[in-house]
């Protein structure tokens, strides 16, 4: 049997780092091959090289046994390679169908797009691979899970026999992950080869036939999935032992910090997103909000932080009505916010670490003199302290955060928000896209804050995370809190059902 992919001695150096260091990587035909590694291990770079997006400094690439010059994605596509990128490569304003056929359009009269024929073609495809999507919907209106399906369809439509999935599960709900796995297995059955990239060990073990582990740009292990065990793999990947669970120390109080009453809001398209949300979060408590993405979580967080207007209802913090308060006033009242998208909402990439660390408290003492001038001495000491306390890996306080890795960037956000002595923390997807080490750190910090008396509202699409951290779990579905559960009295299955709109048993 020939190999589908063989990469020999691939080296890729960036000015700052050796991203790939003499990597040998072999994928057999028809297998699901896992590529495992921490953040920045070099997985994406390796796959970009395979897909012709990056050129290696050294090394050869063989596809189906033949050496190839991989100079552009067009070449890769011709050779039957498809890639679903970590950050989706979809054009938001185009429809699903348009995205799928982009670059491989059908025409009538040789000039005009033949939309009907293409719709039919794509529909056939969807049926064949059991991937359901509304072909005419613009992509920006779709939840990420569906967008991912579109990505896969896109690759298949281009005739991909070898499919690269770069961290496909990091944005999915458990149900969606299950569906994805089904689809991936179906692909395998159809004879396709799949390269599956992930941080999540369980998943890799669950679906892959063989696994290659990268660490700091080098291959540190290649194993058969059924011959390995979880902890071992984790250690190979991280290079040390990893703690998976947190010991929860529970302090029961009834001191309500945040309370919402019949909260309603509309989304960007003007449709109702929150339809009367009621809940409370107490001090010394983490309330986890579980739910499939797109059920109003984003809007809920925005309403709570003042970034979106509530159309109805009330938000009370310490029994003060803050429904009309501006984001700035809320920050002053002691509300901290870890946004779901750190690039978009959390950080100003061109600002230095120091400048980012004072965002939100930049306008009050001790960082200002007379409310006008910034007090750089205080600020720089503060920044240095936080960099140390939160082990932010940065050359210095003046480095733009743009230059930092995703995990480090998240540490900046967390450091800023947690050091403000908040009474309420609203953490939205706080560990999305982070590696094991960084995830562990952020979770530990959240629990620490809780233990110091903070009320924490945790919104996460990762059920494991909700499960591991929450004192109580609220499930959100279509803009409503459909249940609030005690984690000790419920099951993952029950939650999954609630998240999918089912009734709890």
């Amino acid at each position, binding site marked *: 049997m020939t190999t589908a992919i063989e990469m020999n001695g691939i080296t890729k150096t960036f000015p700052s780092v050796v991203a790939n260091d003499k990597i040998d990587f072999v994928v057999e035909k028809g297998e699901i091959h896992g590529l495992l590694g921490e953040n920045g291990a070099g997985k994406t770079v390796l796959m970009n090289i395979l897909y012709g*997006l990056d050129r290696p400094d050294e090394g050869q690439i063989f596809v189906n046994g033949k050496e190839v010059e991989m100079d*552009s994605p067009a070449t890769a596509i011709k050779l039957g390679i498809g890639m679903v990128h970590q950050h*989706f490569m979809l054009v*938001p304003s185009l429809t699903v169908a348009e*995205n799928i056929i982009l670059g491989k*359009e059908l025409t009538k009269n040789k000039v*005009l797009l033949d939309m009907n024929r293409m719709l039919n073609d794509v529909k056939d495809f969807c049926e064949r691979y059991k991937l359901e999507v509304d072909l005419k919907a613009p992509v920006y209106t779709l939840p990420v899970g569906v967008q991912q399906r579109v990505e896969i369809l896109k690759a298949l439509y281009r005739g991909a026999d070898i499919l690269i999935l770069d961290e496909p599960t990091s944005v999915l709900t458990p149900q969606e992950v299950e569906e994805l796995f089904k689809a991936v297995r179906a692909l395998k059955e159809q004879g396709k080869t799949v390269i599956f990239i992930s941080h999540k060990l369980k998943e890799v073990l669950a679906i892959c036939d063989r696994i290659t582990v990268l660490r700091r740009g080098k291959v540190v292990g290649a194993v058969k999935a059924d011959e390995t065990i979880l902890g071992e793999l984790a250690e190979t990947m991280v290079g040390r032992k990893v703690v998976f669970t947190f010991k929860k120390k529970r302090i029961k109080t009834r001191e309500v910090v945040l309370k919402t009453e019949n909260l309603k809001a509309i989304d960007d398209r003007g449709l109702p997103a929150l339809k009367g949300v009621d809940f409370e979060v107490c001090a010394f408590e983490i309330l986890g909000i579980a739910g499939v993405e797109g059920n109003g979580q984003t809007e809920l967080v925005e309403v709570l932080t003042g970034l979106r207007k509530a159309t109805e209802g009330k938000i009370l913090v310490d029994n003060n009505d803050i429904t009309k308060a501006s984001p700035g006033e809320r920050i002053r009242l002691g509300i901290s916010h870890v946004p779901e998208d750190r690039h978009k909402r959390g950080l100003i990439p061109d600002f230095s670490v120091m400048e980012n660390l004072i965002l939100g408290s930049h306008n009050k003492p001790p960082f200002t003199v007379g409310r006008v001038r910034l007090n750089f001495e205080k600020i720089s000491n503060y920044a240095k302290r936080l960099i140390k306390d939160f082990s932010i890996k940065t050359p210095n306080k003046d480095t733009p955060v743009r230059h930092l890795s995703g995990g480090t960037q998240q540490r900046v956000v967390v450091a800023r928000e947690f050091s403000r002595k908040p009474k309420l923390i609203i953490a939205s997807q706080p560990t999305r896209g982070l590696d094991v080490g960084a995830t562990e750190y952020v979770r530990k910090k959240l629990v620490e804050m809780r233990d110091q008396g903070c009320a924490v509202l945790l919104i996460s699409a990762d059920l494991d995370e909700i499960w591991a951290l929450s004192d109580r779990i609220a499930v959100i579905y279509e803009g409503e809190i459909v249940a609030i559960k005690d984690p000790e009295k419920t099951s993952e299955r029950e939650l999954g059902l609630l998240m999918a709109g089912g009734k709890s048993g």
Partner: protein
Amino acid sequence: MVELLDVITVGLFTAALRMTTPIAFASLGGIFSERVGIINIGLEGMMLISAFAGVAATYFSGNPWLGVLAAVLVGGLLGLFHALLTVKFVGNQIVSGTGINIFALGFTAYMSQVLWGSRGASESVQGLEVVSIPLLKDIPIIGDIIGTHTPLVYLMLIITVLSYVVLFKTPIGLRIRAVGEHPAAADTAGIDVFKTKYLCVMVSGMLAGLGGAFLSLGHLSLFAWGMTGGRGFIAMAAMIFGNWMPFGAFGASFLFGFADALQMRLQALGLLPPQIILTIPYILTVAVLAGVVRKAIPPSNYKPYVKE
């Protein structure tokens, strides 16, 4: 005396269409460039140099159509230059465009001096003749308004429709939109992002060139220094106002062209001081824009696409 109603005539609308034409050409040009993520603030300069080139070529060849061709080519060349600077050398798009504008003013004056011994205006050349479209011109009113024009007016109308078709009904249009909105996505779909950008910015320059040719050969038959009179900038406004859509841009250009034509006729009524009447098109544009409560969201992110 002249009454207010005397002003609302067929002539007003034909004039409006003429005043619309150069702006519409340039704003269509703006669309093509911005749709692939390149701001083209140099439309004004491209128009001016093209207007000059058109007259110069006609002056030497005696054939205004060769002049139009020259204008289009020169516009395309400037577009290529803008693309080279901003795509290949990742230059700042606004700086580059501003450079082109200032260059245009200096260059046309300098060259007018060389060619006609005057930096102010060229000699008169043979302009494009007005043509009537047989059937069209017989339709009452409509025919009077759009039936008889210089060919470039028809070309503008055709190109407006064509731009829509190209952008929204053809594969290349799909690719253009994808490249502008999400170049990385287009790249991974096997589309040559850079080629698309070059092409579109060149087309942008060519359309601006047609706008310039209309001014100097279609409407007038001479070149005068600074004759674009800010129409390139107005065209950018029309493009934004029209939401980067061909018909929208045409509509916005027409709004402005109409207001301008109206303003000119209102002056003859002596109702208000001329300076105040002259502000009408500008105030009207702002007012309409303020009335249309909508955020203008550009179709692309304008960040240079840098491949490793």
